[in-house]
């Protein structure tokens, strides 16, 4: 940081999707979630608790907004003034969007959150000092802070419950930030197995995130966006959503697009890696 950088044009900083240095080669992990299939059942959220050693904070701390659900189901109503919600509710599974230009990465004072070459936003627990600037910057509010010492003082895994903890995931202590990692332990495991066998990770179900694996309606697709054979790639292509644009060409069409794919808060240009497919409602009833 020098005097000259102060004169640089910061309006350009992080407005473009950063490319060049960090390769999406050979992996770029992304997701597509079909909101017409998602029933809002919360199976994904519970599976995430099981896989990632998430602490159950209890009623009082939940009331304080200190819940730790990395994957949460947001429920919206239509709010169209009618007496009953006759079109049902709208469910949105919200988890870390693994933004390409993540607003959280730039503000960490110690560099505990970074971007990986395979397109994830990484969170390094032992480097985190707990400034919470990252969660303040996150537009999706998907970062969760360990306000309390859950493993020891709060003893959220008493007696035999600690045997259920996943040894592939760090148990976080007090004062560190955490968030969805796209089950990076599973990703690293699959990448390692594939590497030993001299190949790349295939899109045949050998690598699934916990949420994807549990989802009873198979609403979640997860995979390698740069692998032309992967389901996620095909979905993003079919929906004409490009990762490194914050305005999609298809939305410029007169009357809007007739395709369902969109990303939440795309116009803020964090370039999220999760594409949602809009829920559909029948007009004839």
């Amino acid at each position, binding site marked *: 940081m020098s005097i000259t950088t102060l004169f640089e044009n910061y309006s350009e900083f992080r407005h473009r999707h950063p490319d060049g240095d960090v390769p999406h080669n050979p992996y770029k992990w992304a997701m597509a979630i079909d909101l017409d299939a998602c029933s809002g059942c919360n199976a994904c959220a519970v599976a995430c608790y099981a896989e990632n050693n998430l602490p159950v904070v209890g009623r009082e701390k939940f009331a304080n907004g200190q819940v730790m659900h990395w994957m949460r189901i947001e429920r919206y109503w239509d709010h169209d003034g009618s007496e009953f919600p006759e*079109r049902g509710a709208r469910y949105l599974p919200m988890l870390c969007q693994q933004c390409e230009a993540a607003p959280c990465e730039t503000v960490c004072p110690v560099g505990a959150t970074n971007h990986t070459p395979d397109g994830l936003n990484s969170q390094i627990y032992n480097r985190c000092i707990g400034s919470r600037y990252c969660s303040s910057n996150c537009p999706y509010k998907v970062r969760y802070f360990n306000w309390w010492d859950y493993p020891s003082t709060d003893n959220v895994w008493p007696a035999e*419950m600690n045997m259920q903890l996943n040894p592939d995931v760090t148990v976080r202590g007090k004062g560190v930030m955490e968030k969805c990692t796209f089950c990076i332990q599973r990703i690293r495991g699959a990448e390692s197995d594939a590497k030993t066998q001299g190949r790349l990770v295939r899109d045949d179900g050998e690598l699934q995130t916990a949420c994807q694996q549990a989802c009873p309606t198979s609403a979640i697709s997860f995979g390698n966006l740069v692998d032309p054979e992967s389901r996620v790639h095909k979905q993003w292509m079919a929906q004409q959503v490009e990762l490194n644009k914050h305005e999609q060409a298809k939305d410029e069409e007169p009357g809007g697009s*007739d395709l369902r794919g969109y990303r939440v808060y795309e116009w803020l240009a964090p370039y999220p890696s999760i594409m949602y497919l809009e829920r559909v409602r029948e007009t004839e009833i």
Partner: protein
Amino acid sequence: MMNSEFDRRDFLKVLGWGGTAVALTGCGNGMVESGKETVVSYVETKDYMIPSVSVYFNSTCAQCDAGCSITGRIREGRVLKLEGNPESAINRGKTCGLGQAGVQNHYNPDRVRAPLLRTGNTGEAITWEKAYALIDEKLKGVSGNEVAFLTGGMSGHTKVLMGNYMDSLGSKNHFVYEAIGPAVVRAANKKSYGVEMPRFNIGKARVVLSFGADFLGAWVSPVNFSQQYAQFRKGSGGHQRGVLIQVESKMTITGANADRWLAVRPGTEGILALGIINALGAHGVSIPGDIAAAVKTYDKDRVSNDTGVSAEQIDKIAAILKERTPSLVLAGSAAEGYAHGSQNAAAINLLNHVLGNVGKTIEAAAIVPFPQMAPLTGNTAALKALNDGLAAGKYKVLFSYGSNPVFTSPAAMKYKDNMAKADFKVVFAQYLDETALQADLVLPLDSALEDWGTQVPEYMAGNAQINIRQPLMEKLHADTRGMGDILLTLIKQRRAAEYKPFDDYYGYLRAAVLQNKAALGGANQPDNDIFWNETLSKGIIKFEGAKHASLSVKSGAAGLTLPAPSAADAEYPLQLIPHVNANLRDGRNTNQPWLQESPDPLTTIVWDSWIEIHPKKAAELGIVEGDIVEVTSKSGSLKVQAYIFPGIHPDAVSIPLGRGHEAMGRYAKGYGVNPFQILDMIYDKETGELALHETRVKISRTGNRVIVVKDEGPVGGNQEGQKIVPEMLTNKVNLSKEI
């Protein structure tokens, strides 16, 4: 100042580092974590035991009765996570949140760990030998018809063994009780289709019209139905996307996913069904004579008046049902929970006949060719019968397994008091729940993840299958036993010679399976060990081409009468709908913290109960969110926080079931209220089932207010004009390019 020969070591000495520098550098890279110095190594291992590499075993989930197959991930001898087994036609590799919490049931710190004998108000831990001896002693001089068995639904070899044990005692008093089972619908299905639980092909349907059947939530086999639902939305066989219409008085999660959710006056679901049949006739669908006669007076204006659903809407439903076939009409808990629930369900089932769905989306279910293993399903009439018997002093010895009636029965039934009338009460349980606390002897059970067994699901989603249950790890607690092992020991007290060849339930199961090897898929496998191991490894025994129960095409319109909508009751103006949600159900899994902290899909409330009130009604009564209201029925009252909820009929209120435990464990006790307690004892006229939705209540503010603990923010599900969850209508969206 610094001499060039000044060594670093001396430099530090000069500084008088005293401990400061040590504090900065002394955290010890590579130092062994204190307390973890010993490496756990093995004496002998199997080849597949590679430390840090997971091993997977198949088994069957026991969190509800659907019988989904699970694959457990095991690391170093402990089960860590459950996934679905892709080979099962029931759950096809998926699990629900409740299934995921199976590990929390297994590792639960509040599990009973030793047999407990009542001494006054406490339980004294005794040995199993003493427990068995005590049971034997208490049964002496007691005749068979003075012994009663209360269980939940049972199937497979445990059911067979239980039946044999009862037989050895000369007892025929087996009461199979399910607090929230679809008993009325089963009976109605039997009348309408000839079978209690046909196979519902949601994936094939183009329209699903569900009268309160919460098939995405807690109804029958939700994981299977969810999978089919996904298929249904995609449209099969070149058809367009399926349409879901949900009719109920209180919005369930299935209702939240509907294209059209219709709030219907509580109890008038059958009237609406007949009105739709009438409208179908008006739209030109041919209606069989007897049915046409039955629906003649149910024109859409009268029906609209009775139910609250607009005539225009009834027309639209008839139009879309006529146009898009096949369809599927489901009768669920909302329809059946009334004194005329059977008639409601019968009227709804008529729609399937009229629409020609029988044989298309309502199919014959496959049957496992071992009828003795077929599941026993439960109902509340059974509990009533047991309760009456206990009250009359008929039963001296009571065995209780897989049910918690002290919690799930209405207080007006006085089951707790009646249970005390039995001389000796044995409860087989994993937790000290409300019923176990009334026992004389509590026998601790293995969890489903450490036990052996077979299970035959009631709802057979595909071809017939028998699910295998095998331990996913060594027993956690030395002094718990599997139910099969307990039954085997007990039956050996009476039929020693017959059961002598079996050392344990594992041996019994193995022998039983091998005895029928040919029928169980082992005809081409001469080696018994290989066949047994393969069976265990697959976790499912499948029967290709098994016999299907046949469906009757008789419609059964004869004698169908529906009562008029119930008159308003000035003293108890609101209908109480106790809601079954997917995770908590009847409260058997409430002590699993993940489920307590999992937000309710409709209200996002956690760790507590609530009463849902429609905004219009709330405004009338001056109730705002968080007000503690007193809810009073003829049978009791409770106090609960209010939640203003648009998805409920203004004449109804709803409190979720499953919370309000007074025992069971640290995560269950003291959270919420139990609406089971205040239910009125009103029964379905035809089946004698407790009519769960017939209770009427009055509510009044207590003047206290709390902050509702929920996941949604103060904005409460409002997108505030942002494009967070947009929606597309079918006349705009292009689904043709989707994969």
